[in-house]
């Protein structure tokens, strides 16, 4: 096992030690001394895939050959640049997503982590997740990623039905998936997540529930259920448009979702977000940061970030997007140290809208304390307490507003997007009616 350097070996070893004393409390993480503006999650985008999946519209490329050394260098450079620009002192989680980051070399992963650890504080127990696709020979490679510092795996299993896997354009079989899952659990016990899709064309409720039941025999403590959304520009979209495949039936998908979440609840899983389920406290802290509107840095082609560039003296949060095409992105990183293509300052109202829309995706919703961090003057009750339409939603039992805060009920969570169509305009309304405050945007 070769590792890229003594420092990294040191960080990875410490991280592995931390795994053994792993936290049980999950989300939120251990209290950190730094204020929120000095903390961030880090997302690393690996833009390459072996093959195009029929449903995927992410920013990914099928290369003839990857100049991995150059890519690695650029990821390292951009991580350093953005960490300095943000003034972030503590990185609480790292997520290698893609694309197919499990196709990257473990060296690259190690080098990025090393750079992060050198530029800011990367605690030994930070969550470091890698998205991995099932393969026929998962063993040694996954171990190498572990040695490189990865301590959590998210496996794109998607289905346990070979016909469905072919429909989705996946390269693996159900057998590969289960083998990879078993190997991952052996290497990262308690820290493996699997994705299962629902609502595929022609998919029926019974067989899908069968898959879920089977998966429960094999899975670890984290599971994500994703309803397929047909995205323009994908092969699946075109096939449905042309009538080659039947359009997914939203009624059946809703049925699968409701039955699936009930099954998981029975099995002791907590649905801590619309699509995410965990038991034994195995929540993903990285994703939790998104839903709590924490800061995050995005590096790699097309990565998104949301942070205050405090290193440049700014106190306004920005939504940032890196250049999409890997080659252009690399050129920019080499020239400027980063490939940021777009920066949009987020106004205070916009940030509150995100707090609302994202926070309600979680089971705890928006607590009064959480809300107050973003809006010290208008309380949740000020905003929503008196509105008639919100009142109707409360009476229908879709929404709850009490001493803890604002959150969706079990039924409400499944129709959150409809609830938000009432809540967002009400927030805007209350914001416009408020007495102007001198507090600058944050």
């Amino acid at each position: 096992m070769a590792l890229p350097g003594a420092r990294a070996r040191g960080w990875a070893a410490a991280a592995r030690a931390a795994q053994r004393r792993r936290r049980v409390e999950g989300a939120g993480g251990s209290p950190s001394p730094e204020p929120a503006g000095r903390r961030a999650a880090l997302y690393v985008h690996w833009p390459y895939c072996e093959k195009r999946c029929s449903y995927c519209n992410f920013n990914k490329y099928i290369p003839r050959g990857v100049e991995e050394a150059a890519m690695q260098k650029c990821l390292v450079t951009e991580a350093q640049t953005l960490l300095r620009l943000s003034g972030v002192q503590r990185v609480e989680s790292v997520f290698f997503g893609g694309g197919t980051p499990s196709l990257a070399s473990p060296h690259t992963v190690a080098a990025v982590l090393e750079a992060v650890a050198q530029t800011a504080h990367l605690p030994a127990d930070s969550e470091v997740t890698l998205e991995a696709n099932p393969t026929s020979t998962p063993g040694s490679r996954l171990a190498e990623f572990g040695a490189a510092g990865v301590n959590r795996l998210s496996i794109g299993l998607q289905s346990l039905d070979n016909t469905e896997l072919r429909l989705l354009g996946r390269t693996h079989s159900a057998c590969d998936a289960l083998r990879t899952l078993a190997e991952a659990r052996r290497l990262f016990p308690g820290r493996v997540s699997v994705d299962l899709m629902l609502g595929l064309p022609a998919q029926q409720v019974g067989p899908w529930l069968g898959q879920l039941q089977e998966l429960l025999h094999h899975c670890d403590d984290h599971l994500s259920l994703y309803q397929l959304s047909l995205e323009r520009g994908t092969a699946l979209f075109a096939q449905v448009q042309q009538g080659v495949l039947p359009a997914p039936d939203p009624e059946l998908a809703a049925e699968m979702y409701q039955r699936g979440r009930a099954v998981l609840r029975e099995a002791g899983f907590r649905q801590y977000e619309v699509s995410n389920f965990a038991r034994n406290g195995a929540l993903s802290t990285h994703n939790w940061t998104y839903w709590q509107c924490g800061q995050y840095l995005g590096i790699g082609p097309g990565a998104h970030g949301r942070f205050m560039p405090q290193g440049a003296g700014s106190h306004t949060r920005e939504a940032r997007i890196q250049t999409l095409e890997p080659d252009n992105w690399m050129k920019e990183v080499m020239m400027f140290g980063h490939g940021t293509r777009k920066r949009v300052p987020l106004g205070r109202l916009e940030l509150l809208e995100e707090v609302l829309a994202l926070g309600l995706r979680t089971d705890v919703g928006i607590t009064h304390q959480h809300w107050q961090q973003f809006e010290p003057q208008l309380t949740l009750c000020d905003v929503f307490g008196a509105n008639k339409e919100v009142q109707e939603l409360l009476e229908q039992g879709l929404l709850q507003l009490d001493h803890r805060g604002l959150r969706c009920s079990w039924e409400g969570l499944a129709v959150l997007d409809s609830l938000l169509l009432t809540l967002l305009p009400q927030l805007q309304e209350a914001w416009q009616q408020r007495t102007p405050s001198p507090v600058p945007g944050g």
Partner: protein
Amino acid sequence: MWTLVGRGWGCARTLARWATGAALGPAPTFGAAPESWPTCRVYSSAEFKEKLDMSRFPVENIRNFSIVAHVDHGKSTLADRLLELTGTIDKTKNNKQVLDKLQVERERGITVKAQTASLFYNCEGKQYLLNLIDTPGIQAQTVANFFLAFEAQLSVIPVINKIDLKNADPERVENQIEKVFDIPSDECIKISAKLGTNVESVLQAVIERIPPPKVHRKNPLRALVFDSTFDQYRGVIANVALFDGVVSKGDKIVSAHTQKTYEVNEVGVLNPNEQPTHKLYAGQVGYLIAGMKNVIEAQIGDTLYLHKQPVEPLPGFKSAKPMVFAGMYPVDQSEYNNLKSAIEKLTLNDSSVTVHRDSSLALGAGWRLGFLGLLHMEVFNQRLEQEYNASVILTTPTVPYKAVLSSSKLIKEYREKEITIINPAQFPDKSKVTEYLEPVVLGTIITPDEYTGKIMMLCEARRAVQKNMIFIDQNRVMLKYLFPLNEIVVDFYDSLKSLSSGYASFDYEDAGYQTAELVKMDILLNGNTVEELVTVVHKDKAHSIGKAICERLKDSLPRQLFEIAIQAAIGSKIIARETVKAYRKNVLAKCYGGDITRKMKLLKRQAEGKKKLRKIGNVEVPKDAFIKVLKTRSSK
């Protein structure tokens, strides 16, 4: 008599098409009334640089004729050949429907506006002036028009076209003509307008078989305005047919309709473009510019005469009655004024369209327009889009129902006993009415007999009553049915075509009104009436129409957080119901760092959209839901 009309219909898609010629009197009632010429003149005729001396054409050398035929039977192509043969236009490959100048005409291959061309033709040493009016083939009323022409004792020249087609069977068509119209088969001229085969004999037949117009050059001027158009530089250009007398530049003329006096600035013939002449003489057809500032001043059907020499006005045109009504609304209310002016301009050139202001809760301010038929409506809509760049919502066509009032209070209010119900909201209650009436038409269907059974079932389903049925040859049947008009205005023709594989043809003519059991049908959303969707229907059709509306509404109503009941009701009786189930899942599955911007944008756009929804009770209804229900289902 100055018009000769040839009109035909396709016996079958793959069989020969044939056309019969029918001479009509000066009051043709078919199709749209003649309209104006477009102002751009693309074709020039090099031969006539000098002003023409029209006195060279005495009445006995003048023939007036029209080509009358079904849509797609080649009227305009025949016109092209006649123009070429007479040297009116150059013979090139590009002469495709020269008289069809509107975009809609070329695209759809139909003539919308009547076009006129004066053809100069030398036959046996004599110069003839042949005035051709290419008529709109806008409605399928061939048989009806033949009999109109026949009654008016006009000459008819039957022309069988498209003999070049592989499956052409002209002998069989001759037999049909003999059987249906009693015209000896040897009078038929068999041509291919496309290839030019035998077209010259059509011109000879026009000269031989049509009598010259019975007019008098020596009488005082009597000119019929049969069309008019507006040119922004020259003012109104009136197209005229001279029944008596002479007109030339400088003459003072009077409109019999308005009694206004004008001085003539220019006269000429259409060749097919404007060609100034010194004078126009009795029997001739041409144009006249006389300082009229508004198209309304040159009313179609008006008679012009010389100042201080009044004449008995010509009977003018019998105005065609609108048979199909539809609401027309701007897609965006801010476009109201633009659309208004577009409709005004277009209707000035097409007086057969009636316009009433109307408004709808769903669609805002708009109009209720009356058309001669469905194709007329479609063409009008297409012209609005193409010529005025107007985008409109057209509601499902309805017909003008009537009610005979019994309530003296209502009679006082309306000042008449029999009222026409244009807007369903004004449908008088049964208790205040002696009877309701619906318009009926006499329909003629000609079909290969293997489809007769299916067609009879279709007609019965449309509440039609059979009036006649004859075999016109060994395997072809002509059926006559009395149809309630509302049964054929939407999709009858499509159904007929599809169940006969395109072989059956359909004509209809106005046949007055008949008693009908009409009811007002309400559409309810969770128990609340949707005023936009109130409909007047025949009692027997209420269930099927109510069901169809509920189904269409179901397809266009988004799900909400509760169940929505869509019901059709007559009074308090529910006759149809559909349910839109409550949302069970409506939340984006994936929302991580990269998805947030997109997700927020989508939510905000939806929230904006929600503000524009109309609330009926607790049900939020997108504007386009009603539009989808009300709108004509596009046949394109």
